[in-house]
C-alpha cells in the first residue's frame, strides 16, 4: 500500500470514529422519524378463537367473548370502545355508510394505553327478555351486558330466507384527539352476527 492510499484509509477511519462519537448528540437533536402508528382491535370467542360464524343465542344464557386493543401509535393513547347493538335492517343500512355507526352505544369502555401495551377484557352478554310481538317480529326488551341489565326496545324482523332473527353487536374504537379535546372515530370496528332462535 502506498502512502496516498494509507492516508485515505486513515482519514476515512477517523471520520467514521468522529461520526460514532457525534451520534448520541446528533440523534438527540434530530430524532429518527417514528413512522405511521396504528391500533389493533380484535374479538375472540370464549375459546380464544376468531369468531367466524354468527352466534346462535338462547334466552337467558350468558355468552362470553374476549376483546383486545393494542396501541402501536408510538405514544400514550386514550381510547374509547363503544358497544352498539343493531337489528338486521340497521346493520344492512350501516354497511354502506362510512364512519361510525349513528346508533347510540349501549355500553362503553375507556382506557389509556402506552405504546405496545395491550388491553384485554372479557365481555359477557345475555338476552334476558325477548318478547313475541307478531309471528315474524320479536322485541329485545332487556339485554344484560357484563351483568348489568339494559332496558331497550330493539325490534327484530324475521329474515325471510333463513327464517331466523338476526342482530349484530358492533365494537367501535374511538381515540382521543388532544388538540381538539374530543374523541374521534378511529376507523376501527369489529362486529359479529347474533342469531336468535325461532322459539324465542
Amino acid at each position, binding site marked *: 500500500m502506498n502512502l496516498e492510499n494509507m492516508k485515505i484509509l*486513515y482519514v476515512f477511519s*477517523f471520520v467514521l470514529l*468522529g461520526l460514532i462519537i457525534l451520534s448520541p448528540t446528533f440523534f438527540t437533536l434530530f430524532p429518527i422519524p417514528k413512522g405511521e402508528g396504528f391500533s389493533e382491535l380484535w374479538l375472540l370467542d370464549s375459546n380464544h378463537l376468531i369468531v367466524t360464524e354468527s352466534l346462535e343465542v338462547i334466552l337467558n344464557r350468558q355468552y362470553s367473548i374476549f376483546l383486545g386493543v393494542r396501541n402501536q401509535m408510538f405514544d400514550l393513547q386514550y381510547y374509547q370502545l363503544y358497544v352498539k347493538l343493531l337489528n338486521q335492517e340497521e346493520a344492512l343500512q350501516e354497511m354502506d355508510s362510512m364512519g361510525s355507526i349513528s346508533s347510540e352505544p349501549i*355500553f362503553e369502555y*375507556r382506557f389509556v394505553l*402506552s405504546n405496545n401495551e395491550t388491553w384485554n377484557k372479557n365481555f359477557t352478554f345475555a338476552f334476558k327478555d325477548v318478547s313475541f310481538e307478531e309471528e315474524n317480529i320479536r322485541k329485545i326488551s332487556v339485554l344484560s351486558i357484563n351483568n348489568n341489565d339494559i332496558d331497550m326496545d330493539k325490534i327484530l324482523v324475521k329474515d325471510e330466507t333463513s327464517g331466523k332473527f338476526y342482530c349484530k353487536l358492533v365494537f367501535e374504537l374511538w381515540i382521543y384527539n*388532544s388538540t381538539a379535546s374530543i374523541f374521534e372515530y378511529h376507523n376501527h370496528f369489529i362486529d359479529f352476527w347474533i342469531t336468535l332462535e325461532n322459539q324465542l
Partner: protein
Amino acid sequence: MKKYKIIVYIILLIIVVACASQCFAIDFIEASTILEQAESEVASAYIAVAQAQNAGADVTELITTINLANDLLSKAYFALRVGNYEDASYYAIQCIESLNGVIYQANSLESEAKEIQDRHFFMNLIGSVLGLFFLVILGFFGWKLLKKWYFKKVLNKAPKLAVI
C-alpha cells in the same frame, strides 16, 4: 285525640321526608354536568401524563390511576344511560376524587424527566466535543507516527549500495 295527633305528625313527617328526598334527587341535567366535569378531569389528567411520558418519565402508576378513574367514568355513563342518575353522579364524583393529585404528580415527574434529559444532552454534548477534540489530536499525531513508520519501512526495503 292524642292518638290522632301522633298519626297526623307521622304522616306529616313522611310527607316532609318524601319531599326532601325529591328536592335533593339528582336529575339528568345535574348528573350530565357532573359527568362532563369528570370527563374533562380525566382528559386533563391524560394530557398531563402523556406529556410526562413524552419527556421520559415513568408514568406507569399514574396510568393505572387514570384507568381506574376511566372504569368509574364508564360506570357513570352506563348508569346515566339506564336512567340511574344517583349512581351516575356518584361514580362521576368518585372518578373526580380518584384523580386527585394526578396532574400535579405528572407535572412534577415531567419537570424531573426534563431535567434528567437536559443533563443527559449536556453530557452527550460535552462528551462529543471532547471526543472530537481528542480524536483530532490523536489523528494528527497518529498520522505523523504512521508516516514515520512507513518511511522507515520503505527505507529498510530499499537496496543498499555496496561500498567498493
